[in-house]
Structure formats: C-alpha cells, structure tokens
C-alpha cells in the first residue's frame, strides 16, 4: 500500500472517529499551545454531559522554533485531538484500530504505552496516561483527564492526541518533516517552511516585548470583565490570548525567574474561574447534552 500523506492521514482519522460517533470539529480559530486548550476539550470535559469530539489543532510553541533548520522541531505543529467522554472500556483498542486504519501493521511493529502523566499548570489540569511509542518514536499522548480548571472531573474523559507530523514521518519513513508530502504533489516544506523561518525570527527576535506585556494585561482585564458579566466563552478566548502572549514573551526571554511563576498563576486563575463559571452556566441550561448524547451513543462493543 502507498503510504499516506498528511491530508490522507487526517482524512482517515476523520472517517475513523466519525464512525465512533465523534463530532468532527474544525480547528479553533485562536493560537493555542495544544489541542487540549481548545474549548472543545478544556470546557467540554467539565461536568456530566457526555461528548465525543475530534479535530485537527495547529499548536503553537514559540520556543520550539528552529528557523526551519531542524528536521523534527517546529514552532507550529499539528495535533489530531480526540475526546471520548466518558472514556469507553475499549478506548485503547479503539485507538489501536485507528492506527490500523492508517495502514500500520501492529504485528510488525513495536508499540508500547509508556507512563507519561500530562499536566498543564496554566490550565490547572492534569491527567494520568502514557506516551505511545511506535518503534521508539512518540506518536501519541494518551490521557485520562482527572482535573481541569482546578475541578475534579466526573465522568472521566479519555484524550487521544496524535502528533500528525510524527505519524507522517513514521508512515513515510522520512528523516525530516519537511520531506513529508502534505498532498499528493505538495510537500510540507512547500507550504510550511517559510512560515517556520519567519515565525522563528518573530518569536525569538522581533516580537515587541513592551507591546506583549501591555497586551497581556489588557487581555487579562478583558477576561475578568467578561467573567463579571457572565460571558464565559469570550472570557476563555481572552484567557487563551493571555496564554499565547505569555509563550511569546517566554520565547523572547523577557520573563524573569520571579515573574514566571506569577504569570502562570494569573493565567491559571483565569482558566479556573472560566471552568467554574462554565459549569454553572451549563447547569443553568440543564446540561442539555445529557439527553442528546445518552441516546445517540451506544456503548461500542
């Protein structure tokens, strides 16, 4: 079988998770560090409502930029994010079936689940799980969320985060992500390389530190204001903007030791408050997805 290019990998995963009853969401339209931060994960895992969702999430980590020179490291990579709430008993098997759907014959490869517990101090979130290694390459982070926004979760969601570039290089057996085919004719290099060069320069050298500090405060104030008037979802957008602004400041080396802890705590405070208010708001609405999804989702065999 010809190996799949990036968009075929995405298409295969979309089809696979569609069959598992997932809402196929589109990427959230804000800069985030990981698919977890998108509201479809961070907020949906809260409270009792069942939910299944899958989406691609371009994820920005400014400090990981390498000016397009490193074959494996980029300041923006792509995650394929799946949330299954509550986590079904066969969740590991479902995941392995999705790899088979991508054309990976697991009888011929060394696949293992190795302890790796995920934690996000900025989101007040943590979970228990593994990194999934395929012939020694980390291709997925698999997590049972235990807490988000400082709140204990019940039911527990399973989060599957595929690293699309990693899976792509594994399937195509190439050493550099820039050699990956995005579509049949266009390479990853063709569409992403210049972006890596320019954004690395921006993240490390050109970003305006003074402006970013001001923006951080403005975003933070706006988020608080919106929380005060009960606009929880917009408030979370501004919390995400704070988080990305912090990441940019960090990659500019503009955050001192003592500031760092304090700034992370400020973002976490926003995230925790958003989580609390979101849950209240869902409760007021009578947790509308409780009925819809309970009926719509048979427990997979």
């Amino acid at each position, binding site marked *: 079988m010809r190996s799949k290019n990036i968009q075929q990998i995405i298409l295969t995963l979309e089809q696979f998770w569609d069959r598992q009853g997932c809402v196929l969401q589109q990427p959230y339209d804000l800069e985030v560090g990981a698919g977890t931060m998108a509201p479809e994960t961070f907020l949906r895992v809260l409270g009792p409502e069942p939910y299944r969702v899958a989406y691609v999430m371009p994820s920005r980590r400014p400090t990981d930029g390498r000016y397009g020179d490193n074959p494996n490291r980029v300041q923006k990579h792509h995650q394929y994010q799946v949330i299954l709430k509550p986590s079904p*008993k066969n969740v590991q098997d479902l995941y*392995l079936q999705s790899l088979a759907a991508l054309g990976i014959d697991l009888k*011929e*490869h060394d*696949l293992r689940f190795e302890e790796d517990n995920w934690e996000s101090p900025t989101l007040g979130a943590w979970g228990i799980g593994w990194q999934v290694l395929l*012939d020694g390459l980390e291709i997925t982070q698999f997590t049972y969320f235990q807490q988000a926004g400082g709140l204990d979760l019940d039911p527990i969601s399973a989060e599957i985060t595929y690293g699309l570039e990693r899976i792509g290089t594994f399937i195509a*057996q190439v050493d550099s992500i820039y050699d990956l085919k995005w579509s049949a004719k266009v390479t990853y290099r063709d569409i992403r390389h210049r972006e890596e060069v320019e954004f690395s320069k921006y993240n490390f050298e050109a970003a305006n530190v003074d402006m970013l500090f001001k923006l951080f405060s403005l975003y933070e104030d706006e988020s608080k204001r919106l929380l005060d008037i009960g606009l929880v979802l917009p408030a979370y957008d501004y919390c995400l903007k704070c988080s990305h602004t912090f990441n940019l400041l960090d990659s500019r*080396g503009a955050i001192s030791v003592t500031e760092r802890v304090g700034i992370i705590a400020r973002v976490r405070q926003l995230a925790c408050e958003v989580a609390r208010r979101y849950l209240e708001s869902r409760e007021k609405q009578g947790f509308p997805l409780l009925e819809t999804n309970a009926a719509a989702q048979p427990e997979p065999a």
Partner: protein
Amino acid sequence: MTMEKKELVIELGVEEIPASMLENASRQFEDSLLESLKGQRLSTGAATRWHTPRRIIVGIQEIPASQEDLLETVTGPPKSVAYDSGGNPTKAAQAFAQKNGVPLSKTKITQTPKGEYLCIERKVRGEKTHRLLERLIPAAIARIQFPKTMHWSPDHFRFARPLRWIVALFGAKTVRFTIADITSSHFTTGHRFLGKARIPVDSLASLRDRLRENSVLVDPEERLVRIQSGLQREAEGCGGRLLEDPDLLKTVVNLNEAPSVVRGSFEDRFLALPKEILITVMREHQKYFSVLDNAGRLLPVFLAVVNLESDGDGIIRTGHERVLRARLADAAFFWETDRKIKLADREESLRHVLFQEKLGSYYDKTQRVRALLPRVAGALGRSALLTDLEAAAHLCKCDLVTEMVKEFTDLQGVVGGLYARAEGSRDAVWRAVYEQYEPKSTSASSPSSDTGAILAMVDRLDSVCGCFTVGLIPSGSGDPFAVRRQGNGILKIIFDHRLSISLKDVIEWSLAAYGRERDPVCEGLREFFEGRLRFLFEEMGYAYDCVNAILAAGFDDPLDALERLRALQELRQAPDFLSLASNFKRVVNILSQAGEVTGVPNESMLRDPAESALWQSYLRVRPEVEAARRSHDYGAALRSLASMRGVVDEFFKAVMVMAEDPATRNNRISLLYSVSQLFRSIADISKIVIERGV
C-alpha cells in the same frame, strides 16, 4: 475427614501499569490475600506471584473449600449477678439465655480473668471459601496502594491504571464479583497484537501455559533470563560486551510481555560525542543498552528490548535507528553550538534560572556556595584547593543554560564538566563540576576528586539549609525538594572522603550566607542531620541501640560519630561490656532521679573501700580514655572503660548511693556523675539493649 483443598487463581488485567509500580503492587496483592485468608481461619499452601505491564497474577495453593466450624463463646453477666444468694438463676440470667435463644440449662459458668461469668457456647458453621472469596478478593484489590492513582469508572474506583478484566478461579470455578465496573470471569487476554483476546483458563498452570501460547511470559524471572541472554548474544554478535545496567534491565522486564532484543547501529560520526552523552541519550530517552569494545570504548550500536518475538525484516530496527539518529543529531547540534559560548560567560544567565521560588536564582546559589567554600575548605584543612574550588563554583551551574542540559536534564553537572574539560579547565576544576551531583543515592559512589567532594557537599548544604529557612522541611512522606536525599549525600561524602567537620559550624555558615544569624532553624537542622545519620547508620548495618548510644553522646562531627559507632558495635558482644551497660543504666537512673548534678567528689569523703576503688579506677582510666579519644582509637577507649566493670559491680553491691546523710549522698552522686561523663564523651551505653540469651 480431611477437608478438600483447592487452588485460588486471580489475574487482574489492566491497561499498562508503570514499570516502577508493578512489583510492589503484586507483592501487596499477594500479602493482602494471604492476610485475608488467614483472617478467615483458612490455611494456605504455596503462593505464586507474577506480573507483566498488563496483568498482576497471584496463585495460592491448598486452600480448604470451607472454614472449619467454630465453637464460639458468648459471655453474659457475672455469676454473682446471674444467681442470687440461694443459687437460683436471676432475671438477668434468664434474659441472657432468652436473648441468645437457648434454654437456661444450656448456659454454663466460665472462668475469665475478671472472674466467673455466665456464658453459652455455640457452634458456628464454617462458611464456604468460595462465598468468602467473593468478598475477600475485591477488598484485597481495593487495598493495593500506588504512588499515584486515577479514576475512570462510574464507581470512582481508584487504581494506577484502568482495570479491564479479572480472572478469579477457586478450584477451577469462577469466583464472581464486580469491581470498577468489571465482572470477574475465567477468560484472560493474550498479547495485544500476537495473542487471542478471549482465552478460557481453569488453573494457574493453564493460565501460564495458555498465555505462553498467546505470546505472554507471565513470570518476570523468565523474561529477565530471556532479555539477558538476548543482550549477551547481540553484544557478542558485534564483537563487544554489554554495558551492564541493572536498573534499565529491571525496567524493560516490566515494560514487555514478549521481550526480544533488537540490535541497531548509528553512524560512526556520532562517536565524536562524549560517551556519557551517547549513553544517556540512548538510556534515558530510548531505554537502549550500550555496547563497549574490549578497550571500554563505545561501539556505534544499541540494543533495544521490544515487545514482539522477532523483527524478521528489520522493520523495527530501522524505525529505532531513525529515532535515535534524530536524537543524536540533536545532541551533536547542542554539543557544537553550546561550545560557541564559554561556560564562564553563562554565569550571568543563571539569574534567570530559578533555584527555588523563595531562595532565588541559581546565580544567587552560586554566590552563596562561593561564600561558603573558603570557610569549609579551611575547616577541612584543604585551603590549598581553594583556587580550583572557586573556579569550579563559578562554572558549576552554568550548564543549566546550555541546550544540552535543557534537553537531557539528567546530564546536569556531567555536561558542565565535559564542556569545562573541552575548554581546557584543570583536572581538579572540571572534575568538580562533573561530579557535583554525586552520589546520586546512598548506594552510588561519591565524587572521586577532593574538589568534587567538597563542592558537592557545600552545594547540598546550601540547598538543605535554604529549604529549612523557607519551611520546606521534610515531614512524613512529604519531601518535595528531596531534602532528605541531599542530607544523605552530605553525610555520605563526609564518610567516603573521611572529612572531619562540625555540623554546627557549617550550618551556621550556610545560614549566614542566607543572611541569617542565630536562626531558630538551627535546632531543626541538627535534628534533621541526627535523623539522616540514624537512617544511614542503620542502612550500613549498625544495630539501632548502638546507633542510639552514639548519637546520644553527640554527632556534631559525623565522621567521629561513625568511628565511635564502629568501635562500639565491635565491643558490644564482649560479656564485660554488657554487664557494664546494665550497670550504667543504673547510674543514669540514679543521676536522673538526683536532678541536676555537677562537680567532682571530695576524695576525703569516700569512706567505703568500694567507692574509693571506683574513684581510683576512674582516675586511672580517664587519661587512657582521653588519650585514645585524641588519637580516635575508640576501640581502646571503650576497652579502658570496660575494664571498670569489676569496680562498678562491686560499688553497686557494697555502696548505698542514696545514703541518709546528704553530704555523703551528694558526694556519691558526684562520683557517679564523673564516671558517667567519661562514658558520655564516647557513647551513652545505657541505650544498649541487653538481650537475655538462652
């Protein structure tokens, strides 16, 4: 009739439990099951315990099919209440019989420690073991403790990872129960990719054999043997020898159900990297073993343990090689680029690296270490090393801002040392940087260089004292900053390098570097080091009572305490010594009853020959003990003390210390006080526990 006996088999099927938790969890489960059975008066035969990342298995042989019947005694009112003066049963006796549903004629009188009581005896039928197990097994599962747990199921059951199936058999019959939304059965599951998913079993042997057929080796010992022989074979296959790594071996045994060894290679050009870096990249990130040639040089190969029976077409090998190539390319890149900035020029950047929130940056830490070094080196008589120590102190934390250490954090120190060496630092300097985090544990080796030992000690001293000043004091299981381990490190270096130093002094100096004088945490630190010494001494195999005796006599110079301890433990077995110890207890008791005592006895008042003899003996022994003490010959000191045994015995036989005349009494107490002081400078031997042998 002999009771029928059956085998109990339990398999807990789980999603991959972390390797480090497995062995302990399976041991707990076995212990807990045995305990529960014992608690139900059920005898047990041999027990077997196996584990893989996906299962914890316990088998227990020869458990009776039901409990023995039990004769139970129910105690009622005392005889005096149950019968009146005429010997007739009272209302209380009747009520007791009625409550227990027996006629009064069935009651008896029983003799108890509290006197005679009315009672009844009744037979309790033993319950069927199978029924008991339905309750005992889930309870035993729930008792397994893990360092970190999660929940996932509607009943909020907590475990290291989700439970997915349970096999529970008693004599081939399924013991049915439900826990964490899982109902037990007699079906197990094979290897994830090579085995069947639903396999019926009816005994421990069939569980093992069927799983073997389905590519799972349940016994960790068997996996160990298979991995070891695979590693040997592959290492020899490329003309080298395995770099032994027991910890990694233990990990891979618990990461695989069907282990086999795959050998891959990497390009020769990466051999230009220091060996330490190559080994760490392979070990920490990829869990690969390294191979050395006969001259101890690294070969450009790696051995990976994979969870399949073979790698026929080399697909897995190629995959691992690609991953390692990327990792090594990163390391090579860091090695090249890091060295473009001299280590010394990175010191300023340490201002941005947090040591601890309230204790400032690593730059601040470096400054404190530098301030401490001259005092500590001076106290150790090693001021000649000061120039090298100063140079090493400047460099020691600079590798924290190198890309190499950011990526391979376990290599902190080592990387700094390697960079310093590459920059042409003197041996004593780069080695000190390289070795500053040694020993990594109490069983690991201390720094080999003198400069490394002193730097490593001072660095930890600063951390420990700093943590105490901001309340990061270890308590119970809480020790987030690993202060205890750092304390152990300080003491281990002191012992291994035979450094004689006053803890009180170094604590004061360290606190002074934090701008604290006469801080109340000094007392906490003293107790902390006492605790660490007790732990280390006992770990070294010294008897706890000897340790108590030594610590009670002081431990400000830990090396001195260790030497005293060694001598005491050796002498402990001598018969003279034990009897001396028991007399010394009397001395201590008398002195503690007497309250505050000081001063020397008035010789002219020592009228009894036994007290004179003791005093003369004291005058003879004292200079001997002092001389031995000065030359640190504590064996000789203790032997001199032991020679007093006869006169001490005689004294207690002949002399009444608590004489009626207060002057005589005080004089005798002063005499005992003098004697006790002589002992107390070496060991408080009243702490020695005297076992009454047969």
